[in-house]
C-alpha cells in the first residue's frame, strides 16, 4: 500500500484501491465512522498513517467525521471522509451546508452502499444525496477505476471548489481485482486556514454556508460548480462505450452493475446487438455524451441497483432532447425488468435481456438448479442468524427477557443498530420490539416513556451499544433525563465497535492510529446528566435480572444500566477461555419434563450441541469460548464450569 513508485499489477480489494487512490492524491487527513462495507478504507489508511504522516481517525459519528475532513480542506489539505450509506444520512445535515460553503483543499466523501442490505439494517441508496447536495457523483466500475477515480476525485474537487461524492457498493468494496498503483506524492502540503479576506472570497474569506436572504451569493455559485463538473464529465475517461455503432439495445449502467451487464451480454453472445455505456460520472450526467449514445438505439435498458437514479436522470435528459432524439423505449425498474430491491447479478440482467429482445427462455440450467436446491436443502445444516458463542448480548438478552416476563406488564425494548439488533430474533429471545437508526431506540423509548402518563403501564426499555451510545444515543438520553421520561436505558457495552471489526470508540483509551486517547467514561456522563446508573456484568445472570426488575419498577425519570462485558471476539478475549465447561451426561435431563432442552432449544449458544442419539447436551469444544453462562441456566446442574488453566 505504501509502495512509493509506480508498481506492477497488484491484487487489491476495492476498499484498498480507494485507500491507495487517496494516498496517491496526497491526503493528509482521513476520517470516518465504521460501517460495513466501508470500514477497511480507514483501517487501511491507519496502517499507513505513520509512514505517510497522515492523520486518521474514527470519529464519533459520520457527521463529525465530515466536519473533521472539511476542516482539513478549509486549511488547504486534501482529506477523505468515509462512511457506509446510512452514515450519509447522519452526515447529511452538515454536508448540505458544506456543499454551499464549498471546500478548498480537495475533499472526497466515500459512501459504500450495501444493496441487498447484506450487512445493514435497511437497504438504501446514497446516490440521490448527490442530487440533493448538488455535488458531483462518481461510481467506479472496476478496481483499477476505484483507485484512479479516487485520485482524480481530489483534482475534480479542487477544480470546482466543492467536495466530490464517490459511491462504492459491497461487491466493489469487498471483491478484489488487479490494480496498477501509481506514484505517491513526495511532499506534503502545509496547512493554513485563511479567513481574513473578503466575505465572498473562496480562498481567503470566512467559510460560511449561506448569507441570509441572498441565497444566490452561495447557492448560485454552487450550482455553477455543478455545471462545470458536467462539462468536465463530457470528456471523462471513466465513461466508456463498448458495442456496435448502432446497437439494437443500449445498456446504460454504472458501478458493479457494469460488470454484471458485460457478463450477461457475453454469455448471451449479444456483443454485436447490444452496446454497453458504462458511466463513471453519474451525476450530473454529461448531456452531450448521453445524447450521442442515445441517438442510434431505439431501446434503452438501464441496469443499476436499488433506486432508479440513473434511469430517471437519463429519462429527463431524453425528454429534454426529445426533438433531436425522437421516441425511445426505456427498460429498467419502472418497466419491471430490473428489480428495485436487492443486489443484481448477471442472471437478472440476462433475464431482462431475454425478455426485451424476445430471446427464448433458457431452461438448460433449470434441472441443475432444482437438483442443487434439493441437495442444499437436505445436506446443508440449517443455520440461522445468531450471536457468536460466548456473546455477552445473548446473556444480556436472557436477563432482559426474563426480567420483562417476570415483571408481567408487557414491557418492551426499543433497539437500534449493532450486533444486538439480532435481539428481535430467537437468538435474542425476541426481545427487541422497535429497530431503527443509530441511537433511535433511546429516543423512541424517551417518547414511549411520556405516553405512560396516559395510563400505559408497560415498562419501557431501550438498548444501545457502547459505540452507538457516543454516536447518537446521548442527545436522546439527555432528552429522556431532562423530561423525566420513566425509562430504563441499557448500554450493551462490549468494549469496542464490535460488529464492524473492533474499531475503537470514544470510550476506549487508544485511537485507530494506536495513539493514546482520552477514554470517556459513559457512566460518568450519565451520572452527570442526573440519571441513576448501575453497572453489571451480563454474565452474572441473577444479579443482572434482579437489578433490571427493580429498575423497571421505578417510575420517576430515566435510569441507565451498563451491561459491561467484552465481545467474545475482542482481541483481549480471543482464544482465551475463562472456564472449562462440561456437560455431565448422566445428569442432563435432555428433552424430558423439567428441562426440555433449555440450553440447545432456547438459549442456543452455538457452543452447545444436542446429541440426538444420547439425548443429552454436549459442549462443542472447538467453538466454546468458556464464558460459563450456560452453567447458570442449566436447571439440573448438568453443565458445570471450572476455571480454565491459562
Amino acid at each position, binding site marked *: 500500500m505504501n509502495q512509493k513508485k509506480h508498481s506492477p499489477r497488484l491484487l487489491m480489494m476495492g476498499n484498498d484501491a480507494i485507500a491507495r487512490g487517496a494516498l496517491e492524491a496526497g491526503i493528509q487527513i482521513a476520517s470516518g465512522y465504521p460501517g460495513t462495507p466501508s470500514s477497511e478504507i480507514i483501517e487501511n489508511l491507519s496502517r499507513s498513517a505513520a509512514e505517510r504522516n497522515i492523520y486518521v481517525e474514527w470519529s464519533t459519528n459520520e457527521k463529525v467525521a465530515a466536519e473533521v475532513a472539511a476542516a482539513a480542506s478549509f486549511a488547504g489539505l486534501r482529506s477523505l471522509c468515509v462512511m457506509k450509506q446510512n452514515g450519509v444520512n447522519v452526515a447529511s445535515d452538515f454536508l448540505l451546508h458544506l456543499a454551499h460553503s464549498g471546500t478548498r483543499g480537495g475533499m472526497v466523501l466515500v459512501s459504500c452502499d450495501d444493496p441487498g442490505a447484506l450487512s445493514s439494517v435497511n437497504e438504501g441508496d446514497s446516490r440521490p444525496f448527490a442530487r440533493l447536495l448538488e455535488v458531483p457523483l462518481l461510481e467506479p466500475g472496476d478496481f483499477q477505476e476505484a483507485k484512479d477515480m479516487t485520485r482524480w476525485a481530489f483534482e475534480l474537487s479542487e477544480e470546482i471548489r466543492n467536495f466530490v461524492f464517490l459511491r462504492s457498493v459491497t461487491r466493489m468494496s469487498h471483491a478484489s481485482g488487479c490494480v496498477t498503483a501509481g506514484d505517491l506524492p513526495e511532499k506534503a502540503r502545509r496547512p493554513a486556514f485563511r479567513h481574513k479576506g473578503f466575505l465572498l472570497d473562496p480562498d481567503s474569506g470566512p467559510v460560511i454556508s449561506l448569507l441570509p436572504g441572498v441565497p444566490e451569493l452561495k447557492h448560485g455559485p454552487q450550482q455553477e460548480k455543478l455545471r462545470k463538473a458536467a462539462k468536465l464529465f463530457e470528456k471523462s475517461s471513466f465513461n466508456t462505450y463498448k458495442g456496435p455503432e448502432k446497437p439494437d439495445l443500449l445498456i446504460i449502467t454504472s458501478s458493479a452493475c457494469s460488470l454484471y451487464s458485460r457478463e450477461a451480454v457475453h454469455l448471451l453472445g449479444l456483443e454485436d446487438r447490444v452496446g454497453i455505456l458504462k458511466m463513471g460520472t453519474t451525476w450530473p450526467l454529461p448531456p452531450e455524451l448521453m445524447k450521442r449514445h442515445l441517438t442510434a438505439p431505439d431501446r434503452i435498458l438501464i441496469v443499476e441497483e436499488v433506486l432508479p437514479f440513473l434511469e430517471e436522470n437519463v429519462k429527463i435528459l431524453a425528454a429534454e432532447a426529445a426533438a433531436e432524439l425522437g421516441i425511445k423505449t426505456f427498460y429498467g425498474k419502472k418497466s419491471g425488468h430490473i428489480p428495485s430491491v436487492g443486489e443484481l447479478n448477471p442472471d437478472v440482467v440476462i433475464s431482462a435481456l431475454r425478455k426485451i429482445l424476445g430471446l427464448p427462455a433458457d431452461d438448460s440450467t433449470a434441472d441443475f438448479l432444482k437438483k442443487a436446491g434439493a441437495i442444499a436443502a437436505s445436506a446443508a445444516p440449517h443455520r440461522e442468524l445468531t450471536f457468536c458463542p460466548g456473546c455477552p448480548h445473548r446473556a444480556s438478552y436472557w436477563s432482559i*427477557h*426474563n426480567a420483562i*416476563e*417476570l*415483571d*408481567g406488564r408487557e414491557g418492551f425494548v426499543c433497539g437500534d443498530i449493532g450486533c444486538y439488533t439480532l435481539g428481535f430474533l430467537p437468538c435474542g*429471545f425476541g426481545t427487541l420490539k422497535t429497530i431503527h437508526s443509530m441511537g433511535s431506540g433511546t429516543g423512541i423509548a424517551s417518547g414511549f416513556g411520556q405516553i405512560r402518563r396516559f395510563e400505559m403501564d408497560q415498562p419501557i426499555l431501550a438498548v444501545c451499544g457502547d459505540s452507538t451510545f457516543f454516536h447518537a444515543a446521548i442527545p436522546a438520553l439527555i432528552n429522556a433525563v431532562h423530561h423525566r421520561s420513566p425509562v430504563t436505558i441499557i448500554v450493551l457495552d462490549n468494549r469496542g465497535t464490535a460488529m464492524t471489526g473492533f474499531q475503537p470508540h470514544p470510550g476506549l483509551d487508544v485511537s485507530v492510529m494506536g495513539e493514546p486517547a482520552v477514554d470517556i467514561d459513559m457512566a460518568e456522563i450519565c451520572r452527570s446528566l442526573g440519571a441513576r446508573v448501575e453497572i453489571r456484568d451480563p454474565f452474572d445472570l441473577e444479579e443482572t435480572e434482579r437489578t433490571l*426488575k427493580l429498575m423497571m419498577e421505578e417510575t420517576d425519570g430515566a435510569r441507565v444500566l451498563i451491561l459491561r462485558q467484552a465481545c467474545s471476539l475482542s482481541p483481549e478475549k480471543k482464544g482465551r477461555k475463562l472456564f472449562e465447561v462440561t456437560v455431565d451426561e448422566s445428569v442432563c435431563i435432555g428433552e424430558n*419434563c*423439567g*428441562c*426440555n432442552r*433449555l440450553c440447545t432449544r*432456547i438459549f442456543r449458544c452455538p457452543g452447545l450441541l444436542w446429541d440426538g442419539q444420547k439425548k443429552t447436551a454436549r459442549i462443542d469444544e472447538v467453538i466454546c469460548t468458556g464464558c460459563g453462562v450456560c452453567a447458570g*441456566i442449566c*436447571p439440573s446442574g448438568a453443565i458445570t464450569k471450572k476455571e480454565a488453566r491459562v
Partner: protein
Amino acid sequence: MRLFGPTELLSDVIEKDLCSGCGGCVEICPYFRSYRGKTAMLFPCNLEKGSCYACCPKAEVDLDALSMRFFGKPFDGSPLGHHLSVQVSRAGKKIGNRGFQAGGTVSALMAFALMEGIVEAAVLTDRDQLMPIPRLARDPSEVFQCASSKYAAAPTLSAFNRAVRDGAGRIGIVATPCQATSIALFRSNQLQKPDFRDPASMIIGLFCTWALDYRAFRNFLSGKINLSGIRKVDVPPPPAEVMEIFDDRGKWEIPLGEVRELVLPSCSFCPDMTAEFSDLSVGVLEGHPDLNTLVIRTERGMEIVSRARKEGFLFTEDIPEENLKHLTWAAANKKKRAIAKIKSEGLFNTDGERRSIFRFSEKTAGKILDGEEEK
C-alpha cells in the same frame, strides 16, 4: 385425569387469570417462575404433557380420582371434606405463648414434627413487608419466625419443588387449599415417573376464603401506610368487616369491602375453604381469636396430633356444636358459589376438546348446588 402440557397451562390458567400463584408449577423446570405473586412462563415449551399442568390446582383436576387416591372414596362434596374429627386446639405448654396470631396450632405441630424427625424440612411462608416469601425450614425456631397470617397469594410450593429437586425426603408443608390440592396432584404422580417417591410426610392445610393479589395489595397500601414498618396483618372475625394492619405508627383499619376488590379472580372459582387434601386443616375458631379449629383428616394426621398432645406441644378439646355448625355453613356456601360459577363459565365436566377446572360426578355437583343456605 386428562393430562396436558405447558402450552395449555398458559392458555387455560395463566392467560385466563385463573392462576392463584400457588407455585405448584414453579421450580420444577426453568420455564415457569413466580415474581411478586405472579406466575410467568418465560419461554415456550412444546411438551404435550408436563408436571406443570399435572400439578396445577386449576387445570383438569379430577376430584373423584384425587379423593379416591387419598381417602379411598369419590369426592362427596361435603362442606368440610373428608375428615375423622374436628377439634378446638392451641399450642401446648411446651411451646408457650409466643404471641401467635391465633392458637399457634400450626407452628406447634410443625415444630413438633421437625423435632421428632417426622419431617426433615418444612415448607412455610415467610413475609418481607407485605410480600409472602416461600421458605424451607429445617429448625423449629425457623417455624416460629414464619408464624402469622399472610393475606396475599404466595408461591409457597416453589420451595416444596425446590426441596424435592434438592433431594429432601420427608417434607412437611403448610398449605392453603389450592396449594394442598396441588400437592395432592403432585403425590398422585400422574406422569407415572418410575423413580417417583412421595416426599410429603405431613400436610397442614390452612382455612382460606380468599387471597389477595400481592401487587394490587401493595399498590393499594403504598402511600397509605409505611410498608417497611408492617408488623402484622389481621382480619378479625365478623361483625368487624375490616382488615387491621399494624405498622410502626399504629393500627390501620381498611374496610373489607375495599380489600375484597384486591382478591385474586381465581379465588372465586375455589370450592375449598378448609384445604380438604391435607392431613390436618387449621383455622381460627370463630369468636375465640386465641384458639384454632383443627380438622383431622388422615390417620397419620391423627397420630401426629395425639403424639403432640401427649408430649405437651398441643392442647385440644371438643369443638362446640355452634362453631362446627357455622364452619360447615360457611364452607358449604363457598363450595356452592364456586361450583355455580365454574359451571356457568363452562369449566366443569366439559365434553370433547374443551378443558375443565374440575371434574367430579354431576350428582355430587347437584348435591352441592341444592344445599340449603341456612345459618
